[in-house]
């Protein structure tokens, strides 16, 4: 193992962060501090981790936009936050009802539409009736009227 690999594995050692955060028990802390004192790679890894930790901890507190918190705690807005809560519950309820209605509508369409599309004119029967009518009356034109009505109904 060369020196770089050793440095990498040391830098990966999560005990360094735990040491910086005061999260090690006394024996582990003492062991690590002995390493920091004896081995430059360990003290370097500690310093590198500490530098980034310090940067984040030194970030200023971000202030909320002006009036934001005040708007939340204003008496009428306290009620409006409650209203938002209630409105969300109502929305969830109405969404559930709408979903049930949509499923019911889809089922209705699935049951009724195929029946409608199957309502086609009984052409063979109509032709036979028409032929019988023509044969009886000798008028091929007026005998077509019932056939037309039958075909329209079937659409």
């Amino acid at each position: 193992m060369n020196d770089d690999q050793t440095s990498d594995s040391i830098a990966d050692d999560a005990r360094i962060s735990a040491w910086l955060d005061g999260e090690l028990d006394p024996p582990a802390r003492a062991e690590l501090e002995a390493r920091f004192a004896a081995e430059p790679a360990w003290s370097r890894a500690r310093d590198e981790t500490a530098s980034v930790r310090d940067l984040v901890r030194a970030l200023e507190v971000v202030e909320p936009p002006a009036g934001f918190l005040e708007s939340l705690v204003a008496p009428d807005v306290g009620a409006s936050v409650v209203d938002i809560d209630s409105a969300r519950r109502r929305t969830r309820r109405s969404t559930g009802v709408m979903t049930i209605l949509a499923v019911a509508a889809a089922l209705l369409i699935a049951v009724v539409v195929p029946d409608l599309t199957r309502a086609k004119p009984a052409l063979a029967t109509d032709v036979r009736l028409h032929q019988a009518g023509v044969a009886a009356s000798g008028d091929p034109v007026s005998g077509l009227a019932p056939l037309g009505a039958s075909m329209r109904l079937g659409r």
Partner: protein
Amino acid sequence: MPTWEEVARDHGRFLYNVAYRLTGNVEDARDLVQESLLRVRRGLATYEPGSLEGWLARIVTNVFLDEMRKKQRRPVHALPENPDLVLPPSIAADKASDAAGLSTEIQEAINSLPEEFRIPLVLCDVADQSYEHIATTLGVPIGTVRSRLHRGRKLLRAELSTRGVLA
């Protein structure tokens, strides 16, 4: 037992700061605070006196995680042809040199961390929570918090080095 209004008034800044560091932008931070306060209001009756900020940090983290899950479920929209419409402008060199610019650089570097590393880092270094509390909040062992936090710091250091903030 504090009232909801007292929590919002006295700890709103804390909530907003944590929310901003987690989300990295004002709009999402506002939404996170508002949703967190709704949950505070609902849960205040069951709050057991202890670390109020620890409890608030847990709530805001849970809201953040819920939002992340929702976003992951939403379809990804294609970027418009003009990337300037969606990408934030890069920081001018003169701005980056001042304190605000540095803060922005650090926040952007934090934003670049995957959530699994960003959350422990923000909870530890911004919200000042113990490993034990972070572990409880995230539902993971303390050892996992320790390794994720250290990994997060290492990734953040690499990102800040790339940006020239750290040597």
